[in-house]
């Protein structure tokens, strides 16, 4: 949804209303608004233009991505067009990077504009919010486009793997036909040339494609009995290419395993902390108990003390009675 610039319509409305009713009190406010519109119009128009351009680019990239998805879905064995696919992939990757840069520049432009026109007040704030929302929208659209690009690439890798398996099947079935072997290696030699030229454009995809063709070539080189020295040279070439790709894939696999290990360590950590949470809860309950016990013991002691100090009058009375009895006894005896 590209941003539409409707300032002209707004201006026309204002003019018509003004001509319809001569409104002296509100004319100043309208003048101010119009001026704001025309002054910021340069900036806002610029922003709208850039945002529109970005939206158009995103639409264009989505269209190309749709074409790439079509190409990648084909599962035929022989009519595969690796050159086109890799070129298209490269173009789309570059487009996405360019759109990313454009959005970043738009954001920085927005920021500079905000600092310039920060004293605008209410109207300026709404414009800023709108611009901000437009940038967010463009970013989310770009994100969805790159997600679908990733999906298309995954589909493509799967299809390539399947086609490689099927080609291997066919290779083993035609191995018995000795006359077919030389033509096979010729065919694959020609395909290898095409595969190499496609390497120009795409790093990951093209390389996997070349790997695909080259592994088939290796099997054909082994079986082609008539092409002794040639096959050996081809195998050497294949080994060289293969070793680079294999070393790259092993490095990436090791990274993947390291990340998996890290994940495990994190989950272990979480487990340990969860266990310790129980212990902490026990400690908490215990301390509360201790506080309660001590306070109630103190209460009891206070009661005791109070009772003692009150009780003394009664005890004095009891003592007094006893002493009187003693005196009586002595007087009697």
């Amino acid at each position, binding site marked *: 949804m590209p941003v539409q610039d409707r300032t002209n319509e707004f201006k026309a409305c204002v003019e018509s209303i003004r001509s319809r009713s001569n409104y002296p009190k509100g004319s100043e406010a309208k003048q101010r608004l119009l001026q704001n519109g025309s002054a910021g119009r340069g900036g806002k128009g610029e922003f709208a233009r850039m945002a529109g351009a970005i939206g158009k680019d995103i639409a264009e990239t989505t269209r190309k991505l749709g074409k790439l998805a079509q190409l990648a879905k084909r599962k035929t064995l022989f009519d595969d067009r690796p050159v086109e696919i890799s070129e298209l992939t490269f173009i789309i990757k570059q487009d996405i990077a360019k759109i990313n840069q454009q959005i970043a520049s738009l954001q920085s432009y927005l920021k500079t504009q905000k600092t310039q026109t920060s004293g605008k007040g209410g109207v300026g704030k709404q414009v800023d919010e709108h611009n901000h929302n437009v940038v967010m929208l463009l970013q989310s659209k770009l994100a969805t486009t790159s997600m679908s690009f990733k999906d298309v690439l995954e589909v493509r890798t799967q299809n390539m793997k399947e086609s490689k398996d099927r080609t291997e099947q066919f290779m083993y079935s035609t191995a018995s036909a000795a006359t077919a072997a030389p033509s096979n290696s010729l065919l694959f030699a020609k395909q290898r*040339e095409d595969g*190499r*030229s496609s*390497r*120009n454009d795409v*790093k990951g995809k093209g390389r996997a494609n070349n790997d695909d063709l080259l592994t088939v070539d290796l099997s054909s080189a082994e079986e082609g009995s008539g092409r002794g020295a040639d096959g050996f040279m081809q195998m050497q*070439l294949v080994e*060289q*290419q293969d070793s*680079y790709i294999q*070393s*790259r894939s092993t*490095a*990436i696999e*090791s*990274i993947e395993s*390291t*990340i998996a*290990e*890290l994940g495990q*360590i*994190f989950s*272990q*950590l979480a487990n*340990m*902390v969860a*266990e*310790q949470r129980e*212990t*902490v809860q*026990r*400690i908490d309950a*215990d*301390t509360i*108990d*201790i506080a309660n*016990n*001590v306070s*109630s*013991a*103190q209460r*009891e*002691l206070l*009661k*005791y003390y109070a*009772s*003692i100090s009150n*009780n003394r009058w009664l*005890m004095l009375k009891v003592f007094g009675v006893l002493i009187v009895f003693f005196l009586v006894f002595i007087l009697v005896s």
Partner: protein
Amino acid sequence: MKIFSVSVLVAPPGSSATLLSNASDLSSFSFYQKGSVGEFMTFLSKTVAERTSQGQRQSVQENNYVAHVYNRGGKERLAAVVITDQEYPVRPAFSLLTKILDEFTATVSQTQYDPNPPSSTSAIQFPMITTYLQKYQDPRQADTIMRVQQELDETKIVLHKTIETVLQRGEKLDNLVERSTALSAQSKMFYKTAKKQNSCCVVM
């Protein structure tokens, strides 16, 4: 682990290669050797690029230098050569070559060296080549895969330390639990004794 020189050449199949852009770091050689070593390196780059067929990667060892070459071919028939010492890891060298070729085709238009390549390398402006040379002197930082691996290893070390700290925390928490249970029992006894004081016989 050093890179001595990086160069981009145009290598038409069958005929001789021409040097398009070159950057070298000969600081480890003495002043009098620099000239001859530089010439040797250009000669080695050209020879190796000529002997490598289109779309092929090779590593050639010569005395104690190793030349990694990637002849990309394609329309522009470009090739890139990097000369390093023997310790430099092979895979980042090749990824450096691919990166340089991509940048070169992106920045320098083909008309500058096709059909007739320029006589001197200063005619073609490609300053990125020196930045790449400097950056890739430490392959661990510059090459993405190695950098990611290194950061992951550091994170793993930090996590191990964290787990040890958590274990110690567990011990201390167990200690605290014991003490708090003991204290709780004692305070309960205190309370009972105080209560007994209160309700017992009417004491003097």
